[in-house]
């Protein structure tokens, strides 16, 4: 339904109708923010990425193929904008500055409710997850986000990051290993039932 609505709205926006572009902005700002926040890990940066994404989309509206999904197209632009931002700040290959150590994380969990279902709902746990993501390097975070949340194929992640497929695969693995190290104490270690 949204895709059908977008087609007509994009068409009007391409003809220079500012009201149509306003509708697209209002419809897609939140999803773009989600992508940008996951990529940058920072609210203000994510807001900047939202602005830049929509500005680029406006400039490149003529290049958008109407058969494509407008949301997906915006998503790609948002990923590129986020990468540009991270690169411009020299954060891409550096580690994010997490301010919570593993010892702190694990120390806090011993005092927490051991039931995973309840932990899942806790604000503290969300903070731990956020902190664990912040401890990934820029490349690890980007590769992981694109694979885990966006389902982007490894080949495309490699192209996006300018690295080989195997390197992309290994980067995703490093990210998962770090997340596991940080978050394993929070999950119950049981055998697979699959």
């Amino acid at each position, binding site marked *: 339904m949204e895709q059908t609505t977008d087609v007509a709205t994009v068409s009007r926006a391409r003809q*220079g109708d*500012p009201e149509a*572009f*306003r509708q697209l*902005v*209002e*419809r*897609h*700002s*939140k999803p773009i*923010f*989600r992508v940008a*926040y*996951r990529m940058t890990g920072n*609210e203000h940066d994510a807001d900047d990425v*939202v*602005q830049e994404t*929509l*500005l680029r989309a*406006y*400039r*490149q509206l*003529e*290049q958008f193929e109407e058969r494509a999904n407008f949301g997906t197209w915006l998503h790609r632009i948002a990923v590129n904008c986020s990468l*540009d931002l991270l690169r411009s700040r020299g954060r891409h290959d550096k580690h994010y500055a997490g301010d919570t150590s593993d010892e702190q994380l694990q120390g806090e969990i011993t005092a927490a409710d051991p039931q*995973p279902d309840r932990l*899942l709902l806790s604000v503290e*746990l*969300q903070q731990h*997850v*956020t902190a*664990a*993501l912040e401890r990934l390097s820029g490349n690890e975070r980007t590769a992981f986000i694109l*694979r*885990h949340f966006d389902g982007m194929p*490894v080949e495309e992640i490699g*192209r996006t990051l*300018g690295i080989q497929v195997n390197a992309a*695969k*290994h980067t*995703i*693995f490093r990210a*998962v*290993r770090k*997340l*596991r190290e940080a*978050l*394993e104490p*929070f*999950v*119950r*270690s*049981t*055998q*697979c*039932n*699959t």
Partner: protein
Amino acid sequence: MQHLNEETLVAHYYHDDDAPPAAEEHLRVCGACRAQCETIRRVLALVDEAPVPDRGEQYGEQVWNRLRWKLGRERRTGVRWQTLAAAAALVAIAFFGGQLWHARNTAPSQGPLPAGGDRVAEARVRGAGGDAATSPDRILLVVVGDHLDMSERMLVELANADPKKSLDISSQQRRAVDLVASNRIYRQTAAQRGDERIASVLSDLEPVLVELSHAGSSLTPEEVSALQKRIDAKGLLFKVRVVSAQGGRAEQQRTAPIDSNSL
């Protein structure tokens, strides 16, 4: 029995492993690897819960309010693309017309200056001629500033492009065609007026614009990289920004209230 290593388990989780049936078969018979696999699944399920701040229902509207003035400027700039060549031609005509007029009107006074008050009057005439000549200079700087502003945006897009990827430049290419034509007129005008600084920047800029205008709808990674090096080597972006900023200041002066001396 050889267990699956952690990297294979992660790849298997994302269906990125090279031999999924073999991994599947191993997991069916190996409890230790199944436990590892389950731990990874649970950890990643936790990550799914990572919070994203809620921006509220009005977020889209807030974004639009911040964005629309920028888009307004973009639209105005879009209109300027079409009028730029015409503006360049007008400046050139005005400049050369002014030169011709100035030459005709100052021709009788090429001899020795008269003495006394006549000498002062002649100096005033020449001074007025000088003022008249200053005006096209300022106009030139303003219009060139506009031209450089648009060129700068194109250079920034190029400079920020990923040199490892092809770059779609279909929209920039059309703009570059217009900019080349304007650039030639401004460069020649600046050279004839003896403004070497502007002429030099325009001269450095022209090959890049020409290359873009002759390029296809996309640049290969090698072409992107070569252009970035050229922009970087000549410090082109910096030079363009400096002159563009001077154009902006000149425009502010031009639009400032008219002083009594000019009446």
